[in-house]
């Protein structure tokens, strides 16, 4: 990655966790909290390593087209990457000719730009501090901002604050009008260009800001009442020169892009919300970053034949208090020769974050004993991609996005055979405490699986956890429901008392067994474990109602239940049939025998439910309609009226429209 220009070092404002004493990436600090310890993060200026994940933003988006992820997983990744198209526009500073470059998704509203906002840390302030009359006021504001986290600055709903720069004025490139420049905390250097254009008539945040500071508000899109609030909808362009009269946003943007290009002060552009990946920890426990700092050659990678660079053994691995890695205290590790010129040099002492290992661990499993390469081409070709990856939603905009990036890089280098690491991604819903709240130690509602296994056994725990509701939904723990699952397995065990000989299904159960096999087979694939188990419970009820089960029927019931309750089914299989259940094949079913003989349909008159009928599944339409109209309630509803339309949705409902 270093050789391909995907690794760089930059001194910027970074997210820092004062408790873990490490720099965190944006993915690590979502919601302004440290992902690991949940402390509030602060901003700190530091020189850190980055991986250029933004280079792969488009590939990460495009790749989502070819994988089978839950819709919500895709959406979260798309939102995190946050691709937008718009324009870069150059505003000139009147006093010194400097260019303030901004990015906007709404170049169509340029005629409505009445002020600009730049980040308090913007370098133009430092550069021209002598010509800024209120520089001390700006300095004070900047110092206040430094105390706030990025989250506080950009996300929290609060009063708009800011300071007008007295001594710098911008020029709107399309109107030629002079407009004031403000600093405000919600504009960050690390996001976009550190400067924005403001269109108060059509942006809520800009509107509040303009109202507070008494700035002009110019309407450029008709449709609202800008004396009351910003109008953010679409409409006809006004007060916009050559754009006047255009009524749709797309055309207005296209026209403005042409204007900008003609004026030479802007062009079409693409931006991503996702930023490059801050890739380092000031910690001991991580892969050392294989880089040497040479006073003559600069940043030099450790040669391939010295890789992997291993962690030195240490006694004290506590992090330093100054944001420096504990490795920096180990002279024998730090001091080395430059691989290029041989001069005395120092090793990089930051280590890789935990996301490094998890970005490729699944590749190594394909060929874990290979001492030549991370996995042979043959092993990768056979095993990859991961067919089904299941996990928590919290990983979607962290581990999932990082590992897809690494994988795509490896693919571009020809080192893996698939462009995507995971063919399918699903996620489970939370298991809540018995009180319906999220399990946590402080609430005292954590259920320990070991306790459950000791009291009820692993099979009961497995069956219950799979039975407790829609797999993707959160569900509260219920001791009663778990006891129901225990009863289910006890009743399965009890079937041995009513077991009869038989090499094929009995007439009484044939259709039921086929249907149950079909349901379990399909439901497992769509993760509807709860309904699969319910179907097997129903079958056992049917068997008890009948009073007997034969060996052929029980055998297939054991087989389809075995993935859920492998112990009890293996034991029963061995004692009844001999041999091992795990060597058996998954049973098949006959589609013809799975059809329901009868089906219940609803009968509506003018959309209102009037009757429910049980009919043979294959009853022809004319007969169904005749039967529906013959029903007492339906006949009453139709009395004295004319049936104008008759609809039959096969196996579901009849609707009669009457006048």
């Amino acid at each position, binding site marked *: 990655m270093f050789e391909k220009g995907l690794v760089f070092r930059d001194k910027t404002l970074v997210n820092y966790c004062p408790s873990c004493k490490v720099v965190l990436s944006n993915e690590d600090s979502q919601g302004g909290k440290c992902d690991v310890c949940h402390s509030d993060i602060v901003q700190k200026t530091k020189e850190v390593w980055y991986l250029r994940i933004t280079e792969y933003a488009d590939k990460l988006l495009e790749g989502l087209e070819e994988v089978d992820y839950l819709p919500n997983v895709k959406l979260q990744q798309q939102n995190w990457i946050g691709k937008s198209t718009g324009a870069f526009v150059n505003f000139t500073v009147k006093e010194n000719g400097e260019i303030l470059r901004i990015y906007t998704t709404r170049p169509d509203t340029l005629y409505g730009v009445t002020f600009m906002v730049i980040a308090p840390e913007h370098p133009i302030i430092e550069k021209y501090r002598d010509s800024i009359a209120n520089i001390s006021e700006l300095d004070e504001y900047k110092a206040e901002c430094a105390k706030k986290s990025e989250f506080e600055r950009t996300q929290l709903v609060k009063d708009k604050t800011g300071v007008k720069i007295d001594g710098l004025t911008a020029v709107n490139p399309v109107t030629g009008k002079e407009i004031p420049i403000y600093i405000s905390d919600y504009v960050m250097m690390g996001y976009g260009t550190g400067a924005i254009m403001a269109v108060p008539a059509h942006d809520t945040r800009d509107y509040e800001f303009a109202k507070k500071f008494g700035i002009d508000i110019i309407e450029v899109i008709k449709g609202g009442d800008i004396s009351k609030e910003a109008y953010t909808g679409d409409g006809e362009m006004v007060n916009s020169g050559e754009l006047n009269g255009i009524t749709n946003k797309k055309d207005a943007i296209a026209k403005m892009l042409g204007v900008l290009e003609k004026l030479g002060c802007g062009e079409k552009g693409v931006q991503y919300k996702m930023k490059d990946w801050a890739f380092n920890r000031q910690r001991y*426990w991580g892969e050392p970053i294989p880089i040497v700092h040479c006073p003559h050659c600069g940043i030099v990678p450790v040669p391939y034949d010295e890789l992997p660079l291993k962690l030195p053994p240490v006694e004290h691995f506590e992090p330093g208090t100054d944001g420096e890695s504990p490795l920096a205290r180990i002279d024998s590790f730090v001091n080395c020769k430059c691989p290029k010129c041989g001069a005395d040099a120092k090793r990089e002492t930051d280590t890789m974050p935990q996301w490094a290992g998890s970005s490729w661990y699944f590749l190594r499993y394909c060929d874990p004993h290979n001492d030549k390469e991370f996995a042979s081409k043959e092993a990768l070709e056979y*095993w990859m991609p*991961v067919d089904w990856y299941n*996990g*928590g939603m919290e990983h979607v905009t962290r581990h999932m996005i990082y590992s897809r990036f690494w994988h795509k890089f490896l693919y571009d280098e020809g080192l893996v055979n698939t462009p995507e690491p995971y063919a399918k991604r699903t996620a489970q819903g939370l298991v809540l405490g018995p009180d319906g709240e999220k399990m946590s130690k402080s609430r005292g509602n954590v*259920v320990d*699986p070991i306790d459950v296994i000791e009291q009820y056994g*692993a099979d009961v725990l497995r069956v219950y956890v799979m039975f407790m509701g829609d797999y993707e939904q959160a569900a509260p723990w219920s001791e009663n429901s778990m006891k129901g699952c225990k009863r289910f397995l006890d009743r399965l065990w009890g079937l041995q008392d009513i077991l009869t000989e038989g090499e094929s299904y009995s007439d009484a159960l044939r259709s039921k067994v086929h249907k149950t096999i079909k349901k379990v087979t399909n439901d*497992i694939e769509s993760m509807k474990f709860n309904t699969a188990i319910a179907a097997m419970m129903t079958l056992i009820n049917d068997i008890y109602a009948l009073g007997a089960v034969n060996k052929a029927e029980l055998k297939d019931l054991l087989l389809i239940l075995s993935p859920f309750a492998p112990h009890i089914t293996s034991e029963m299989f061995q004692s009844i049939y001999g041999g091992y259940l795990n060597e058996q094949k998954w049973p098949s079913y006959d589609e013809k025998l799975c059809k329901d003989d009868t089906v219940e349909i609803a009968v509506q008159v003018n959309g209102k439910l009037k009757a429910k009928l049980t009919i043979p599944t294959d009853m022809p339409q004319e007969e169904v309609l005749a039967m529906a109209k013959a029903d007492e309630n339906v006949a009453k509803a139709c009395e004295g009226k004319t049936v104008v339309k008759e609809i039959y949705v096969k196996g579901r409902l009849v609707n009669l429209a009457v006048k």
Partner: protein
Amino acid sequence: MKRYDFAAIESKWQEYWEKNKVFEAESDRSKPKFYALVEFPYPSGHGMHVGHIKAYSSLDVISRKRRMEGYNVMFPIGFDAYGLPTENTAIKTGVPAEKIGIFF
């Protein structure tokens, strides 16, 4: 019929499966393959609860079905021993990071 003694029966089968490597992925590449994966727990066991059982049981159910359908299944499990979560446990307990997961 004797009572269902789950404790004895469950440990009997766990021993059998482990001893006979019933769930080991095979090197036979003529079979269709199925690679299932879950996010591993931390070696400290920190935060381990029944939610993990839900996350892992689902793919275990699917993997067992796939084996019966003739697939060569790889469904690894292990510890996520990387980085901060493990190191924070190490600092808290004084146990070296590389040994966490052995003692916990």
